[in-house]
């Protein structure tokens, strides 16, 4: 769960706010941030607090329905994606996401939300080492991922993930 700390730091940079010091607490390595306004535990609480602090509430969804959906995906990141052990479980998650993203550009509604950002950070480590065969297999996730990683200021120090086998070769041009 070292990734949680990384995700929080990256999100803070993207939002242009200070995250404060992230410590990992207990056996579950729960991220904890102690600030002036109180202590926050858990990835979801911390990231949502950061978004509110940056006054970018639209990232949390504009309607109650969207907010609930964003919350669900944040929970999904913590309870499903981060708890993946081994390739098999990850494949299950990717398959699920692939099916969900088949008819969507972003996870919630038609705009970038906190759900996209955190799932992008969470999936990044898995995507870096993924062979092209799998990337093409999870076409919808790949498309979404490629789109999100081009969001300005989001990728930061995360390595760029290539989705075309070569930069010159364009699948559509022949």
């Amino acid at each position, binding site marked *: 769960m070292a990734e949680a700390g990384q995700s929080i730091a990256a999100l803070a940079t993207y939002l242009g706010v200070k995250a404060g010091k992230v410590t990992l607490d207990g056996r579950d390595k729960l991220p904890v941030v102690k600030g002036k306004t109180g202590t926050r535990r858990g990835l979801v609480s911390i990231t949502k607090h950061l978004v509110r602090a940056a006054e970018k509430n639209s990232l949390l969804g504009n309607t109650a329905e969207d907010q609930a959906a964003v919350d669900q995906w944040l929970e999904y990141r913590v309870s499903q994606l981060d708890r993946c052990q081994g390739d098999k479980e990850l494949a299950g998650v990717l398959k699920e996401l692939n099916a969900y993203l*088949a*008819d*969507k550009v972003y996870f919630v509604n038609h705009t970038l939300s906190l759900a996209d950002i955190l799932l992008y950070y969470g999936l990044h480590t898995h995507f870096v080492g993924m062979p092209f065969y799998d990337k093409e297999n999870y*076409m919808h996730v790949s*498309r979404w991922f490629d789109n999100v990683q081009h969001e300005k200021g989001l990728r930061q120090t995360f390595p760029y993930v290539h989705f075309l086998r070569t930069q010159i070769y364009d699948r559509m041009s022949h």
Partner: protein
Amino acid sequence: MGFGDLKSRTGQQTLNDYLADRSYIEGYQPNQADAVVFTALVSPPPADLCHVLRWYNHIKSYSDSERAKFPGPKKPVGAYGPAVSAASKDDDVELDEDDLFGDNDQEEEEEDEVRQERLAAYAAKKAKKPGPIAKSSIILDVKPWDDETDMTKLEECVRTIVADGLLWGTSKLVPVGYGIKKLQISCVVEDDKIGTDFLEEEITKFEDYVQSVDIAAFNKI
């Protein structure tokens, strides 16, 4: 070059393939390319073109005024889509290339004709020449039902089979056991005209006498 006619199925299919791994027509943010293609599409795409439908719904989520404010230059619909960069480059060069290909086509046609003529001549020559006829000598084992089967009658029946390219040879009776004898008969066949399947079929037609037919030996002559 472009997506073709976006009102037709093929055009939408092209767009569908194009959007399979893209969220937007160009780049990673909605821009004028999306607005232009969106307007060209007129009506929502059919549900089986899932990529177009996803993109269409996404672009539709913006209002008309928002769409008008998408960044990027506005180009005609044909300028977007697969292989657009190659098509829009240097028209002159393309014309030259066209001429070049035109010449090539003619030359190739002539060459083809010559080759066709030669092939025809060769085929005719080959057909006239009586090549050696491939023949095979086959020895067949014909087994009767039991010891009461009339073997001479059986042999007569077998020899009544007449076909072009089939010549019956000598025959003998070989004891199998318990007083049963099988008929061993040789024949010469022309490979092109007679197959072993034909022989077996014809002989087993005499159900009254013949239980089964085996090929004991098969030699190319």
